[in-house]
């Protein structure tokens, strides 16, 4: 089954628990651990691919290349963050065309103006709602696979009333899901959910604005994509930071050595995530052992 149809079927069944990824390896881990779908965060892709903050530095080419690397190696549906669609209407259309060619199941497009600031940080501005509607309609015009999903994200920069208005008109424009960001009360999310006839995507971030909730609670709010968008990125890089901190302590003390865990064993375990057995079998076929 195409990943787009897979994701539609999953959503039909209930609330899909989706971890974030930022490259092919992290996405493979998600799949191997048994998750049904994977999310690619633009924040994580920007940080790890470019070493830059998520301020729309990353280009369409760069973001979709990461997504393409992911879809090449996983069989579960990928939900990709495409920022604002990377420019104007024509850029949105090219993004949607490429996303379908690359086997992405869903994209998430946002209505923030540059320089973007996620509502969890604050200080951002939204583009006029009509401009976002144009983008959604332009995206739908090049949706060749009817199962391909378009998620409209809108940040709570202008209050709940404006957010509700936008959720309504983006739904009317044809978005498949609404992703409201920065609602601090469950009742606010409920209000948005009740105002529209399409389901929601919700993210769970430690110290983010969206309240943490159970999957059952999310289900009650008609949340179909329940995404832990950034946590995996932070966990990975935080672990790396801690290691580097330990390593840095050697700079001042040349008589010190680090106690290292079972690195090689762990490496082998990690290689299981990238199908090392299959790779080896394949190699044996073409490079017989001497």
């Amino acid at each position, binding site marked *: 089954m195409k990943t787009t149809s897979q994701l539609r079927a999953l959503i039909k069944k209930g609330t899909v628990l989706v971890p974030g990824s930022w490259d092919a390896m992290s996405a493979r881990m998600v799949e191997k651990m048994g998750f049904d779908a994977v999310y690619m965060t633009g924040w994580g892709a920007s940080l790890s691919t470019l070493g*830059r903050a998520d*301020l729309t*530095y990353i*280009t369409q080419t760069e973001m979709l290349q990461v997504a393409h690397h992911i879809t090449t190696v996983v069989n579960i549906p990928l939900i990709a963050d495409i920022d604002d669609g990377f*420019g104007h209407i024509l850029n949105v259309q090219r993004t949607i065309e490429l996303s379908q060619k690359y086997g992405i199941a869903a994209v998430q497009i946002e209505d923030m103006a*540059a320089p973007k600031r996620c509502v969890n940080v604050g200080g951002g501005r939204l583009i006029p709602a009509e401009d976002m509607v144009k983008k959604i309609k332009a995206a739908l015009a090049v949706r060749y696979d009817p199962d391909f999903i378009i998620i409209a994200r809108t940040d709570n920069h202008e209050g709940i009333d404006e957010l509700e208005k936008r959720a309504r008109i983006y739904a009317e424009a044809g978005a498949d899901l609404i992703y409201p960001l920065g609602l601090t009360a469950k009742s606010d999310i409920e209000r948005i959910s009740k105002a529209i006839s399409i389901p929601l995507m919700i993210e769970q971030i430690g110290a983010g604005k969206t309240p943490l909730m159970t999957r059952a609670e999310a289900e009650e709010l008609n949340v179909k994509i329940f995404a832990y968008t950034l946590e995996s990125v932070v966990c990975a890089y935080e672990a790396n930071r801690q290691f580097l901190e330990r390593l840095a302590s050697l700079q001042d003390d040349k008589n010190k050595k680090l106690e290292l865990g079972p690195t090689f064993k762990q490496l082998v375990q990690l290689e299981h995530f990238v199908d090392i057995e299959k790779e080896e079998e394949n190699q044996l076929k073409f490079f017989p052992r001497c």
Partner: protein
Amino acid sequence: MKAAKTLRSLMQKGVVLVPGVWNCLSAQMAETMGFEALYMPGSTISVTYVGKPDYAYITQTEMLEMAERVARVVNVPLCVDIDDGFGNPLNVQRTIEICQKIGVAAVQIEDMVPPKRCANVGGGHLGPAEAMVAKIRSAKDAKEDQDFIVIARTDNYEGIDELIRRGRLYAEAGADMLYPVGALTREDFKRISTEVPLPLMDTPLGGGKSPVFSLTESQELNIRLSVYSLDPFATAYRGLMSFLEELNKLHTHRENIMPLEYGIPAMEDFYKICNLDKTEQSVAKYF
């Protein structure tokens, strides 16, 4: 670093005659023929690399990837069309940072808003001058090499007075050159060259709306880069089209034999342009 300095010293001497290039071979060809600087128009990259019209589809990554490939294989300064800088002032800065790293000598940034339309075609719109001023300032701040050249392009959509007003604003913001585009008379160019305190870039264009100046005339109009931007590309692809038209006739005239003009000797010529000698030396040494 060297490329920008070289271009500056060339322009100090007079008008630089610059052909457009759109890939490595066309650039190496121009260099081999003795041209001292090259220019990469966005429209040619858009149609050849992405297969889309030049309506700002092409991304920063795509444009600069080609610029990097070209800059790597030639030793003459390369000027690159960076459209509107590919987004907001932060994108402009990343564009300028990358351009300096990959050895580009000059960039040309424009003040049109999407969907863009060159003033030689018509139907486009300019963004607010202040937005462009912010971009030029952000570009200037991103210069690590002070010789790096930022050329501000402005299309003649709102009349010559507005064009001159913008030229002066862009000069103040830190642009190094001005590139006025669209229906402009000789008199307009004279006014621009006296009223805007910047050297000019000009693109003599087949079918364009402005007069085509000789190098002597260009010199008098304070034009420092005379860029034949599209005609080299158009010439090449017209050639391809004629060939394909001939080849297509074989579909209906199955008894015909295609007269072939170039083939292997031409490939050998092109290899020479791609430094075949150097490769042959390596082959002799290591195989």
